[in-house]
Structures are given as C-alpha cells and as structure tokens.
C-alpha cells in the first residue's frame, strides 16, 4: 500500500476541513447555529474560480500568483454569503437552522447559474465546470524522507501553509484576546455579555462573517485539489466539517484531531479502493466510509459533548 500517498492526501483533505470547522466553531461558540459552512465554502470557491477565469482570459496567460488572488477572492466570497446569513439570523431573527439550509441551497443554485452565465460571457463557452490551473506543490527536504510519516511533507499545497498560519491565528484570537473571550461568552450566556456592556449581536454578526471567510479558504483549497470547480464537487464537505467540530467538542485543538481523523480515513479508503482495483460500484461504497465513520463516531461520542449552552437562541434584550 502506498503509505506516502495516504499521508499526502490525508493532509490535503484534512486541513481544509479543519479551517472550515474553525469557521463553524467561531459561529457556534458565539451562539449562532451554523449549518451553512458548505454554502460559504461553495460560494467562496466559486468566487475564487471565476476570478481566475476572468483574469486568465483578460491577461491571456496564467501566472502562478493567480492562485493567491483566487484565495483572497474565495475568502471574500465566503464572507459575502455569510453576511447574508448573518443578516437573516441576527437582524431578521429567522430560525438559524432554516436559514442555514436555505443558504446552502441558494449557494448550489447560485453557483451553477452564475458559472454558466459568467463563463459564457467571458470565454464564449458556457459551462459550470471551471478548469483551474494546477497548483504548485512543495516537498520539504529531509523531513519528507522520514519513513511512514514522510508523506506528510511531500507535495504540499501552498494552502496547507496558509491554513496552518490562519488556524494558529484563529486559535489565538478565540482563546487569548478580549474579542475571543466575548465571543465565547455569547454562546454560553449572552445576557452576561450584555450586562457587561458588550453588544451581543455585533459579536455574533462578526463571528458568522468570519466563519464565511474561513469556509472560503477551505473551499478554494478543496477546489485546487480537484483542479476544477463545479457546483456538485463540494457537496458534503461542509457537513463533514460540522461533524468534525461537534466530535471535537467545539474546541479548536480537539477539532484539529477530529479533522485529521476524517481526512485520513478518506485518503485511506481512496487508497484502498485503488490498491484493490475495485470496480466503481465498490469504490463508491468505500468512499462512503468517512461518512459512515462520522455517523458511528457521533453516535458514540456526542453523549459526552457539550454544545454551547445558548447555541441557537436569538438574543433579545428584553428577554430575561
């Protein structure tokens, strides 16, 4: 079995999952139920991909730095959709779960529609499968030669570095800064936050928008891994990220490990299908493995988990 490949792929699956889960953690720790990670991811990735298409056509070439522009665009795209979500749940006080599902459906519809329209207008050929350039990949000398885990240091996407830095920053902000202290209070007892003179809804609003940004970053990373964007290509990942954060008990550090668990179980099952040379029927069966694992894990572990106490409750000053 190709251990190196399992390691390499496992990491490239896990890290985007992890950063998306961090987005979910931000939102949920502030008290806003977050089901629309997937929508943010998709819409962000779409924004990134379409930016690449536009710039590529305009310039007639495809330089390496395009990938960073795409990343930035994806983050902004995720935030834009998150803004809509935040308006729905915080300003208009719609049910958080319903808003989440609506945003997800909207993202799929919007991205397929806009992909065809924009690619049609820009390149003259309407499609909702957007080809992206190949991302550069890096291998770290020496480390990549270590037996078994060497694969972790081979063919790393640039996103891996970005995600690690952003994740560290996100951890720092959530647990060490005053913003983070206030954010986490919002999900446990928003009334205490209000009594401390902090605007609960502002904090929650910002947390949701940040979640969009994190999901956008995860989205573009996934997209480059698959080398193209299509509205159906990201389906399921957002929910996997949510499973990772629940399993990770709404804590960034534990969620790192649960994301790794999901990512590596996926690369392992992919590799297994490959090795055994199974027909596509069976390979589909094996690709289901991470999700089955998710189910099992959640059944056994969610009992000990403690969601934020005020999760899903709208904050209303008059309420007491």
């Amino acid at each position, binding site marked *: 079995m190709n251990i190196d490949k399992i390691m390499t792929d496992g990491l490239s699956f896990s890290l985007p999952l992890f950063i998306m889960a961090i987005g979910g953690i931000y939102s949920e720790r502030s008290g806003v139920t977050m089901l629309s990670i997937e929508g943010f991811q998709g819409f962000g990735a779409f924004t990134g991909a379409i930016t690449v298409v536009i710039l590529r056509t305009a310039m007639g070439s495809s330089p390496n730095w395009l990938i960073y522009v795409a990343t930035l665009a994806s983050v902004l795209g995720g935030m834009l959709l998150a803004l809509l979500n935040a308006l729905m749940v915080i300003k208009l006080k719609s049910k958080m779960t319903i808003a989440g599902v609506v945003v997800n459906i909207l993202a799929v519809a919007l991205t397929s529609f806009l992909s065809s329209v924009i690619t049609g207008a820009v390149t003259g050929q309407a499609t909702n499968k957007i080809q992206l350039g190949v991302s550069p990949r890096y291998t770290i000398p020496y480390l990549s030669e270590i037996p078994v885990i060497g694969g972790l240091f081979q063919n790393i996407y640039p996103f891996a570095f970005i995600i690690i830095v952003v994740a560290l920053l996100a951890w720092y902000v959530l647990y*060490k800064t005053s913003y983070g*202290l206030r954010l986490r*209070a919002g999900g*446990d007892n928003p009334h205490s936050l209000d009594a*401390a*003179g902090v605007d609960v809804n502002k904090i929650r609003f910002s947390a949701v928008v940040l979640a969009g940004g994190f999901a956008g970053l995860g989205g573009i990373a996934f997209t480059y891994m698959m080398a193209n964007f299509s509205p159906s290509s990201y389906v399921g990942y957002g929910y996997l990220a949510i499973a990772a954060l629940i399993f990770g008990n709404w804590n960034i550090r534990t969620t790192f490990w649960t994301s790794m668990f999901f990512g590596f179980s996926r690369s392992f099952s992919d590799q297994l299908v490959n090795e055994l040379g199974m027909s596509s029927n069976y390979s589909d069966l094996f690709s289901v493995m991470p999700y089955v694992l998710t189910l099992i894990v959640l059944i056994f572990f969610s009992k000990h988990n403690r969601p934020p*106490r005020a999760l899903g409750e709208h904050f209303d000053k008059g309420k007491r």
Partner: protein
Amino acid sequence: MTETIVELKNITKRFPGIVANDDVTLDIRKGEIFALLGENGAGKSTLMSILFGMYEPDEGQIFVRGEKVRLTSSKDAAALSIGMVHQHFKLVSNYTITENIVLGDEPLKRLGPLSWVDLKGASEKIRSLSLEYGLEVNPDDKIEDLPVSTQQRVEILKMLYRDAEILIFDEPTSVLTPQEIEYLLEIMEELRRGGKTIILISHKLEEIKQVADRCAILLHGKLVGVYDVATTTTQRMANLMVGKELDFSIDKTEHDFGEVVLDVSDLTVYNEQKVKVVDNVSLKVRQGEILAIAGVSGNGQVDIADAIAGLQNISAGSISFKGEDISRLTIKERITKGISYIPEDRQKEGLIMDLTLRDNLAIKTFDREPFSKKGILQPESFEQQAEDLIRRYDIRSGQGGQTLTRSMSGGNQQKAIIAREVELDSDLLIFVQPTRGLDVGAIANIHQQILEQRDLGKAILLVSLELDEVMALADTISVAFRGQILKTDSVHNLSKEEVGQYMMGVTQ
C-alpha cells in the same frame, strides 16, 4: 451626609399591556443603604434595570451626581460607576471567576501588534479585592462548579472590580441560607462604611429593618412613598406595600390525620456525581397532615422531594403512595396517580419560559379532557382555565393568558406554578421552597392555600429553608442533616430552638 447621588425624575416604563413604572421620582443619597420594597411585579427590577442602562425609560430623566445622564447600555452605567447584581445572575457558566469578572472590561497586555487578555494580573487583583472585602473566592474556579452563594460573591466582586460606587442588589438574599444572609448584610454594612451607596431590593422586611437607612415602596408601578426605616415598623411597611391591612396570623385548626398517603422507607439516593445525598430516609405523610422537612440548604431535602416526584432515581428503599410502590413509575405516571410537585427551581423545572402563561397552566393536563378531545387540543378550554386561575390565584401578567412566561415577574411565575399544581387536585402535594422570592402578601396567600389543602384532607410534604415557615405550617417536622433525617416529631413537641439545633447536626 445628605449629598444626593442619584435622582430619578418622573420615570415611566411600559411593557405590552402593563405600566411597570408609573411616574416614579426618587432620590438616593450618597453613602446610604436605600431599600426598594414592593409586591411581586411592582416594578422594582425594572426601575433598577433602567438605572443600570438595561432598559431605557419611556419618560422621565435620570441625574447622577447632579448631571443629567442618558443610559443606553450597562457600559454607560459602568462609566458612571453604577454596578448591579441581578435577580438572576448573569454569569458565563464555563468561565472561571476571573474570566467572568473581566468580561467586557478586559485588561490587555501587548507585544507589538499582538494583544491578549491579562488573566494572571486580573486574577491577582481579584484575589486582593476578595480579601479586602471578605468575599473569599478562588479566582480560578469555574462558575458551574460553584454554589449560588459563591456565584453571588462573584457578582459583587464584578462591581467592585469596576470600582462601582453605586451598588444595586436585586433580591440578593432570596437564594441564600440564613447564615449566608447574615454574612451578606455585614458585607453591605462594610461597603457602606467604605463610602459606597447601596440600593437593596428585598422582600424580607427584617433585613431591611436591620441594614437599610431609608426605603421606597412601590405599588403597581407607582411610588407610594419614601420612609425612614428606623421609625417605620415592618408591619406598616407590609401594609403600605400591598395597599391594605395585612393579616399575618395563621390560623391552623387541629384535626386528626387520616390514612397514610405517602410512605417512604429506607430511601437512598445518589446524585449525578455519585455522592450519597439521601441516606436511609424513612417518612410517612397522612391525609390532612403537613410534614415539613427542615434543614440547612444542601442536606438532601430537595433530593428526597425529587426522588418522590420521580426526578431522581433511587438506589435503595421504597416509595409507596396510597399503598402502591411507585418508585419505578415514570414522572407522568406519578402525576396521574395524584402527586403534585412545586419544584425548587421554578424557571428550570417548573415552567417552560418561552411558552405562554396559558400553556404553562395546562402543561400537566393538556392531554386530558377537556383540554384535548380525541387527540385534538381545545384552545378554548386552555383559555378558560387560564382566565379562571389568573383570577382566583391573583396571577399578575401583562396580557393575561397570552403573556409570555419569561416576561412575568418572578413572584408571579411562582403563583402560576402553585395554581397549576393545586388545581390537579392531587392527594399528595410536594412544596419545595414555595415562597422563595415572594412578597409578604403573596407568602401569606400561599400559606393560606397550603393550609386549605391540608384541611381538605390532602397530604402535604413541605421542604423549606425558612424555619419560621416550617414552625408556622407544619404538623410534623423532620429535620434533615447530611442526607439523613435526624429527628421526626410533632410540632407541639419541638421548639424553634430545638429544630435549629438539629439542623446544625446536634443530637442530644
């Protein structure tokens, strides 16, 4: 010494269907303990929330230290050094004491572009504050692991940490045991000596008599007057509060008891932390008898009640109700058999806060006739019952049966539970702390109801921390200590002092 620090002028605050504060004008002097008295729902908490910036008044003005101010959030209040301990604490349960205290006003440390919350420094400051005022806490403890009395200290420290000069206490003593109350009152006097101004809301007139300098009385949102505490008797305060002569005498007629309704034997209960909280307890309650379990808070009395109602599993012993063992029955089955339960925590176990009053009143009977017919709910019956109970039990709410339970004042929430439970017409009624947080009028009313049920031949189990209440109502007293019943005897054979001794674990 008569410098005015806060002036409220013509404050009016309306909520849907109710005027919570009606043209209230008050002035509070620097360095005094100023008490605010009034029935449940008189508007005390609302008035103080306005001074703390949680609500804005519809009309009227606020002056602090002579200057007109507009308070839009508690931040504004904090800037004017006003602090408040709310009736329902506002603490983040999974945070440490330090984190709770600094929240919203975090001390920062910086290094280049990075800044972080200096929890260590804050912790030190809190430790020294807590020593200075005798409010002992360990700043690194998590709130959820702390008893309410400590949580309250945290709320007080929160104010002191912000250098508050005007301290508002909203019913601080209703969650405390008598010893803790004594201690808190001492701390308040200490704070007054330190030059702080204290506003104290309380229903306990003796406390006010003990510490306060002046007291304002509110009735139905209006100010009745401001009185010098030293020259006003508690009886007069009570009369002013309810707007009529109050009769506190409890007339209990002696009668013989009927058959045994509840028979608990050798009951043992472990709590969630696997600690033995009830240890081999036996007790019997007969028709027409009030059995009161006296005891200092946390000696297992509530667990006994919970076990009988089915809220807690038992690990040994039996609970028999009218001769039938019910210890394996579900809560619902016990209700149907005829057990009413007024729980200690009305907001968590007694009511669903986000339902209307109407629905809460029917919450144990909604699946029976006339509330539902063939599985279909009959809203008219809900409405009818609500109207009926609101009238008979004097439940005050802005919009009648349609009022959201959460918006009702604490005392009226309690009345709603009692109304619902008494209406079940059960053979056994369990009352846990039935008068906690209630005004004197409401207390008298509830005592009257408990006695009425007794005279109707119901068996009554009363758990109360108020020794006076126990002495006044009980036919038989059981004293709980460390999960055991130390003594059970007729009220005629026990003096208040003796019961007090047993409560401290003294056995002759």
